[in-house]
């Protein structure tokens, strides 16, 4: 007891503290030996920049600082969560996806999505359920998670597969760690499906006399029905259906649009076009109550 309060003990303790403070940052892979908190998820590493073989079993852990992939026999690989720019998911074979669903995803989950000017690109984390596989029943259920991040001048990605039970909890934890909101396009599509059905009464009938590109798809000349879903002030989503009816399964394309007051010149053409780089796109659709402008 006497020793604990002796001056030699105090000197020893002070020396140990000093050494620890100096040595801590010099230790190689100091970050790698930090204790990882949080529940581990079992996954199979499929591809990416992690320094271990593909198709190896890994444990995935997420804490406030990093998403970590840890195989059994080699060092773990960490992705700083604050550098994550995109998380996308690909649910293979959970249920057959329709062509319309694919068009919806292409319309809003392309590079334009999340980067539409009023929204801002930022570092939005998006979760995409790409259910665009062939529309026949599949037995396997692969829940693929792709994580992209940017460190310095480099953009990198890892892809891994998790089990169906772990899928939702892992994504929820990832959202919590990144502090960024995400959209599950699977449920979004179900909501949009309902909205379009309820808005069919206010459909816009248009006649195209030439081939035009809307979003990623070309619309052939002919009659179309467009359904506008207003999302916020002066902005909405416009859905195109061929023919005279709104048939949700025949969705041709979907795109963001600006909503402006009706044009003063009521006699102007109902649809105006613009040419850019040899491609014709829609410029405006004029209606009695409002004008729809294409970005």
């Amino acid at each position, binding site marked *: 007891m006497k020793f604990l309060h002796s001056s030699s003990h105090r000197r020893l303790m*002070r020396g140990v*503290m*000093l050494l620890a*403070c*100096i040595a*801590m*940052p*010099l230790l190689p892979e*100091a970050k790698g030996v930090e204790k990882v908190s949080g529940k581990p998820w079992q996954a199979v590493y*499929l*591809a*990416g*920049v*992690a*320094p271990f073989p*593909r198709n190896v079993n890994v444990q995935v852990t997420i804490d406030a600082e990093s998403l970590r992939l840890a195989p059994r026999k080699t060092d773990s690989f960490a992705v700083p969560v604050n550098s994550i720019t995109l998380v996308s998911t690909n649910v293979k074979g959970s249920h057959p996806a329709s062509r319309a669903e694919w068009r919806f995803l292409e319309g809003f989950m*392309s*590079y334009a999505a999340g980067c539409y000017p009023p929204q801002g690109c930022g570092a939005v984390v998006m979760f995409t359920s790409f259910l665009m596989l062939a529309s026949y029943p599949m037995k396997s259920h692969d829940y693929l998670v*792709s994580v*992209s991040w940017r*460190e*310095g*001048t*480099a*953009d*990198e*990605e*890892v*892809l891994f597969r998790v089990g169906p039970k772990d899928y939702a909890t892992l994504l929820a934890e990832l959202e919590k760690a990144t502090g960024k909101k995400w959209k599950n396009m699977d449920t979004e599509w179900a909501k949009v499906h309902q909205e379009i059905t309820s808005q069919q009464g206010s459909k816009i009938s248009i006649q195209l006399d030439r081939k035009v590109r809307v979003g990623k798809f070309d619309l052939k000349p002919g009659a179309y029905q467009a359904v506008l879903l207003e999302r916020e002030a002066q902005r909405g989503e416009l859905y195109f259906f061929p023919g005279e009816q709104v048939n949700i399964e025949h969705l041709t394309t979907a795109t963001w649009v600006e909503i402006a007051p009706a044009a003063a010149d009521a006699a102007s053409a109902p649809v105006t076009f613009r040419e850019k*780089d*040899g*491609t014709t796109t829609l410029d405006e659709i004029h209606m009695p109550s409002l004008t729809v402008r294409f970005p």
Partner: protein
Amino acid sequence: MKRQIELGIVIAVALLSRALPAQEAQVDGSPRYRLLQVVELSTVQEKVNEIAAEGYRLVGAVPAPGGTWATIMEKVEAPSKPCKYLLLARKGERDFQGQINEAASQGFRLLPRNLAQGRTQPPQFDVAWMEKPAVPPAATQYLLIPFGAKMAAKASLNPALWAETNPLHYIRPQINAALQQGYKIERIVSGAVVVMEKSSGGVGEGGGSTSQASDPDPLSRYHTLGNYRAGRLRKRLQQEALGGYHLLDFAPYAPKMWTAAVLEKDGSDPSASNAVKYQYTAFASNLPKLEKDLNSHAAAGFRLFPQSLLGAFQPQARPDKPPRCRVVMEKAPEVLGQCQYRVLAAARLSDLSADLEKAAGEGFRALGIVSFDHSLAVVLEKSGMENRK
């Protein structure tokens, strides 16, 4: 009290030293190179266009370790005039030529050095990068002439070709017809396809040479070399150069007995004393000694023929030896001075960020990326002494 201050300083220094590495990545907000190593091809195109919008142009793209695609982009232009990129991937037996020409009609042009960088060995023509520069190029059309196993099987039924040793001559009628229409050979993906390009200034459209249009056999202007070892390749290239030919394309992954090099005849008479003559050297190398080999030949005035060092080099039969590559270097008559080369290699492209910026500061420019089994290498060239006549 004094001890507490000392302790505080030590802790502060310790904490600061941990924070420093995070700050060294960028000196200013606009690095010279942007790097990309991602899994999905669709993501590659999306990211490449995002980066291009910031004023970068694609330098190279290759399949990389870990099932990824590695891409390097260089800042060259003002962000107000970005390039656009299109990555076409062949899916099944769809009309790939039609897809390419449709994009070309919208102002895109094939980036010939980044063709055929697929994962298969030898690479098939399954991936094509197209670029739409800020200033739209002249209208361009492309022609893809099959140059693979099916073509060879078909040719084998023709007795007139039984004695023919040059596989390019199996498709002589198609190539001659294209050359007469003003197309030129752009790239040979040996064992897959010959890519030909015609711009609006071609034959019959108000520009270019009309000699090919009147020549009944314009393919005779082209010579080919097989997939030889480095020593034999060097000798044959030198012989061809003395005969007035220069290297047009080189396919490093050509299958055995298949065309690896295409040479085109110069306009001048090779027997004339003032005839333009190229010189060539070829050597085998591997990643650890590549920089040294390149610089030793560069000291003699040679310059890397970039097509010879593109794509992915697979491990050879002996796993204890690093993958080897054949490098072709060229000494063009109108170029004086010597180049310097630097080869930066790492398992992850992001590990090269700092070295690339440092090399850029020293005047080096990236020529492209090469994938060596488990490593990625960026080849940089410095041509400060270059003085074109």
